[in-house]
């Protein structure tokens, strides 16, 4: 039996016919939309490489059935820059060497963006490490990742201060 679903992906509405209900959001993004920035690491919810935003919240796309997400608003790593202007979290990862091989990086960046919106960690490195524990980095770039998140958070705080001033 075929199922039709509609999603908003990086701002554009996309309609799909699913001939198999087993398709995850991760496989839909990669295989149907060719948005291969979202990585398949463990495919079992343990590594965080597949992290995307769904309705503003970071989730593991490998453990989400596409068919269950009718109407969802999805943002992937391909959707965070504005043209050639990197998202501040992307720029901070480059500035602080927040990666080595780069495989986990899209998931790390999407997770960091989600975490900053959750506003639970602030600029406390210990809370940032805890709140980012769902993203593994086998190269061990954690120190750079935390520094990148701290800088991005400081930038966001500064922007908010200017706006409210």
């Amino acid at each position, binding site marked *: 039996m075929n199922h039709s679903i509609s999603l908003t992906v990086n701002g554009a509405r996309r309609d799909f016919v699913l001939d*198999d*209900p087993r398709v995850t959001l991760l496989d839909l993004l990669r295989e149907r939309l060719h948005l291969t920035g979202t990585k398949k690491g463990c495919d*079992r919810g343990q590594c965080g490489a597949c992290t995307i935003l769904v309705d503003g*919240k970071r*989730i593991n796309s490998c*453990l989400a059935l596409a068919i*269950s997400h009718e109407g969802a608003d999805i943002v992937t790593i391909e959707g965070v820059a504005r043209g050639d202007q990197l998202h501040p979290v992307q720029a901070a990862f480059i500035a602080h060497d927040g990666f080595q091989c780069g495989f986990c990086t899209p998931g790390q960046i999407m997770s960091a963006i989600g975490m900053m919106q959750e506003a639970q960690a602030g600029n406390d490195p210990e809370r940032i490490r805890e709140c980012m524990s769902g993203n593994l980095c086998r190269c061990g770039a954690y120190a750079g990742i935390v520094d990148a998140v701290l800088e991005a958070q400081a930038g966001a705080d500064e922007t908010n201060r200017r706006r409210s001033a």
Partner: protein
Amino acid sequence: MKQFDYVRPATVAEAVAAAAQPGATYLAAGTNLLDLMKGNVSRPDRLVDVTHLDGLDRIERLADGALRIGALVSNAALAHDAEFAKSYPAIAEALLSGASAQLRNVATVGGNLLQRTRCAYFYDTASRCNKREAGSGCDARDGENRAHAVLGWSESCIATHPSDFCVPLVALDAIVEIEGKNGRREIPLDELHRLPGNTPGRESALEPGDLIVAVRLPAAARGFAAHARYLKVRERTSYAFAIVSAAAALRIENGKIAEARLALGGVAAKPWRARAAEDILKGVAPTADVFQEAAWRALSDAKPSGDNAYKIELARRIVVRTLTLAAAGTPARIPALPASPFASTSGAIHA
């Protein structure tokens, strides 16, 4: 993953009817179920998607002072609800000590209660497992069983229930509201999970089609807010299941414990309420000696199921530590490392 039919009912009644069919399973966030299906451990014929049902994602304060938490409230939404975290701090801390932020954003209250064991032999379809396949045997008994049960286990099964959330919930007398073929009923959380006995595949009191629609905390549960903690020992300090955990909640009046609640996690096939230990604590001053006595009582029936005798002593020590920190007072903010026994603990006694 085995092929399955997918249905999305419009009402709870439709969901119950659809899920009562043989081979049907409810789908909520799916963070545990999909993992099990990918490994062919769970092989449902039909998924009944309840995520679109209305009215199950609310947190409501009831007229009698109880709190009703809809089954589809996410773990993160509940833990980050400021009023909830203030009134039930040990529950919020337990939630934030579980899984990862990504998983907590979607994993539901109902799904957390019904998550399956993390026994590696249950997950490995090449191994014998009485829970997965009745009568096949238990490879955990002579296998890697450091993390397995020390309470309530049987020769058939030594698996543990992995939930953090359930531990403070059972301590605070949580009630589970269930919609089934014969209408609505409710049971204490302490009666939801079953010990394995000879039928470890039968994990809960739920019947086919039964849908958990809410968890309720009675009015008395908020009386422990000033002295409530959850501590959890794991292989790493974040994003790992409990080896042993404990929830302690005290009502302290005039320097004495008016009422104590204590439960253990990671030690049995269910969240383990330690009522005999609570009795020891009632009416006495909160001292290291009485906490030690309570810890010994809490583990008095414990026995190793394999290479895990250490867990009994570990559980005693984590009980003492949790009681000590609860007596010292709930921190103003949940610690940066939720439930970590290694976090800095101002003024607390080392157990």
